[in-house]
């Protein structure tokens, strides 16, 4: 291997690492707030990328129907509950978030011709379709089980993952898609050629991470999410409801996932089931961080990205073996250094 290749691999690794970092942050967030190991994260990546690709191909993405359907289902369930509890005051909000909002998005998509819109508008529409699915998935799958054990929540996650992958295949078919790059520019740094899209990924990841940091550090809702993660009982006593925190964290996770998908779609071909392995590597990074520390999760993600890109060069058949096996010593080290006093769960 010469320097040229090493630099190229390094660049690849860092780009992938940046995406894993974003996913890891979302996973850490969701776990800390809800104790859900969010395996379907990968599906939001695929949905984001493929929804955008559908727009660019001049098609109406199937995710739009999912949004309308899931919204209607949530509205139905919540309305029944609200009527039974005699809390009719909730109906307005239910109608707004679960019926009107999806309808507006659908109206926009069907009325505008998204294929001819500028990229920014296409991205915005894609996000408008995919992101609201996050809190809806929380409402439908997880909220009734909010107090269940981590194991049960994990199994539910796998089930949600299966359902969403199946829907992905239904909506987008088995063929993969690529989208147009955000930028066609190329830069030469010495012997290394850097693509504009690479810079886009890195830049957008950095901006997103800073934005999240600000959200958690500066806004009351961000602090409320952190508070729930730190001390659930304490947060409830402040009137921060577990359901609200859950929905908010799922919204953020869906947003991060969809955006990650949109960022990588011009670089790699995304298939309906691409999300799982991508998400799994984000998961690896998150676990390196013990599902608690955001900076460590980001560092772990870069490590996973680099490990992956270099091992794919040396022994591509064993790429996944190497990535996942080398994680074990890291895990053992983490587990030995983090003092863990057993408490009943």
């Amino acid at each position, binding site marked *: 291997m010469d320097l040229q290749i090493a630099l190229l691999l390094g660049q690849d690794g860092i780009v992938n690492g940046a995406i894993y970092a974003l996913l890891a942050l979302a996973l850490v967030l969701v*776990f800390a707030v809800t104790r859900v190991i969010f395996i379907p994260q990968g599906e939001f990546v695929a949905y984001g990328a493929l929804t955008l690709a559908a727009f660019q191909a001049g098609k109406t993405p199937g995710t739009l129907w999912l949004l309308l359907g899931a919204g209607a289902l949530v509205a139905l369930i919540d309305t029944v509950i609200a009527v039974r509890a005699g809390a009719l005051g909730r109906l307005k909000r239910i109608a707004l978030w679960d019926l009107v909002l999806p309808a507006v998005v659908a109206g926009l998509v069907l009325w505008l011709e998204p294929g001819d819109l500028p990229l920014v508008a296409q991205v915005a529409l894609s996000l408008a379709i995919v992101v609201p699915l996050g809190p809806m998935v929380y409402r439908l799958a997880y909220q009734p089980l909010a107090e269940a054990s981590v194991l049960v929540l994990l199994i539910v996650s796998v*089930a949600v993952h*299966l*359902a969403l992958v*199946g829907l992905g295949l239904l909506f987008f078919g088995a063929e993969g898609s690529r989208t147009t790059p955000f930028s066609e520019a190329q830069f030469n740094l010495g012997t290394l050629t850097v693509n504009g899209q690479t810079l886009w990924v890195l830049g957008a990841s950095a901006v997103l991470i800073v934005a999240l940091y600000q959200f958690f550090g500066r806004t009351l809702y961000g602090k409320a999410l952190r508070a729930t993660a730190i001390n659930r009982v304490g947060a409830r006593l402040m009137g921060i409801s577990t359901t609200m925190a859950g929905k908010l964290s799922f919204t953020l996770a869906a947003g991060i996932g969809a955006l990650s998908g949109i960022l990588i779609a011009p670089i790699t071909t995304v298939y309906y089931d691409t999300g799982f392995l991508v998400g799994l590597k984000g998961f690896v990074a998150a676990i390196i961080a013990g599902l608690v520390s955001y900076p460590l999760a980001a560092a772990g993600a870069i490590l996973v990205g680099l490990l992956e890109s270099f091992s794919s060069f040396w022994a591509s058949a064993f790429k*996944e073996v190497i990535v996942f096996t080398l*994680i074990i010593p890291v*895990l053992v080290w983490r587990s030995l250094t983090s003092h863990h006093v057993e408490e009943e769960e």
Partner: protein
Amino acid sequence: MKARLPFLVFLGLLALGPSLLPEFYVTLLNYIGLYSIVTLGLVLLTGVGGLTSFGQAAFVGLGAYATGYLTTAYAVSPWLALLVGLAVTAAVALILGFLTLRLSGHYLPLGTIAWGLSLYFLFGNLEFLGGHTGLTGIPVLELAGFKLDTGREFYYLIWAALLGAMLATQNLLDSREGRAIRALKGGGLMAESMGVNTARTKTIIFLIAALFACVSGWLYAHLQRFVNPTPFGLHIGIEYLFMAVVGGAAHVWGALVGAGLITILKQWLQDVLPKIFGQSGNFEVIFFGIMLILVLQRAREGIWPWLVRLVPVRQGQRTVAEAEALPRREMPVAGTVLLEVKDARKQFGGLVANNNMNLTVKAGEVMALIGPNGAGKSTMFNCISGVDPVTSGEIRFLGERVDALTSREIARRGMGRTFQHVRLLPTMSVLENVAIGAHLRGSKGVLSASLHLERAEEARLLAEAKRQLERVGLGEHLFDEAGSLPLGQQRILEIARALCSDPCLLLLDEPAAGLRYLEKQSLAELLRKLRSQGMGILLVEHDMDFVMGLADRVVVMEFGEKISEGLPEEVQNDPIVLEAYLGGVE
């Protein structure tokens, strides 16, 4: 015998199955059997033991590939190959267990994903295992000269293996080692204090689950007569976990119900959905996912417990057989110093919880440790019993330094304790909870337990538990769920559990809290009797009436330090104590 009836009907149907059912259903039942064996291991490991594994499919692969390779490349007998496969699986499981079982909390599932994926990719990339095409031409299994070359014949072997494994697992769970396994989830700290080596217990169930998986793989290889890597991947590993959780992860029968339900559901969806939606699209996985979510939302403990609730079975009154008493430890002579704490200090980060603590307890005396809530009394208990060792200082028990020993080793030396926040297994019976206390007084292992060859010892252990329960006045509640007792009686249960270990020093953390007046009196009576038999008792208690009427000496703590010591009357009149203990606003 009535309770056995459904089981006998089930066995009968099972035996008749192959002669009545069409080929397709026999094949389906064969797969259900194979999956159930793996899932059964997961029930033990994940549902009962609390250790989540995504990697069981890899162990199935080890069993399948071991026999596939040995029988095709070296024409080894399949039965010998089974033994080799088991040995290889055991070795791999021990290494992986050593590496990953020490992973705490959520690291463990990821660790299992890691080696699950790695082994899967190895199967696909090793030349001698045939790469992704796999191995073909695996020979037919012969049993006593009888060739098992059709699914209908193989059926009996699979289901015999499954029923055998279920029986062994059920036997194991209903034994001394089984109680230790059941204590892993949510009671690890307590179990260690009762002398259970939880690290060893975890390794054992990991090993058993891996070996079950290996057997399933071996059967699979000879049923299919070829192997390739596909059925041993991570997604299949996840599916086994599905089966366990949906069936009822904490129940032996849950394995069968889960494997059956999921296998049939998938098959049914594959048949039905294309008829509704046409051939295009992959609807079964969508429906499968949604149905699983709905099932878990309705029955989060799984289907089996839900089924059991539907069929109200009247519990026949069980009895504990009389058995020869267990041998007892020789009690130290009254007045011997049992426990000596010298300059003990305990620090949590910057917070000093205990400082400069000195106290002794002699055989045949009750020493009371009192002080306001939060004074560090329970921390002191944890230091003495090795649950959370001292930062510095010396603790001697029976003259030997124990401050560096684990709680398990200290328990072995004759110290029994109760916990301030009751630590018992709420869904286990009172009797079994108490029998955990006698863990160190039995010695029979997992193998004899699975075969129920240890019934004589087990009877003695249970008889001892019953004796101690009767002694503390809980004889009426032997078969009640421990969690159904009022809190005060749960504390008394903990005393019985501690007594079951035949201790010479008893550490009681607020034993009278939540008791009514008469119950307190009988508890005091019991402690007096123990004292007269030479037991040393160290007591933390807030009820002053109780303490002062019982204690021989009193140590008063505040802010982690000793502020007074002496006879009850002396302490009561010590102005420092009055100030600290009574507080007051002016």
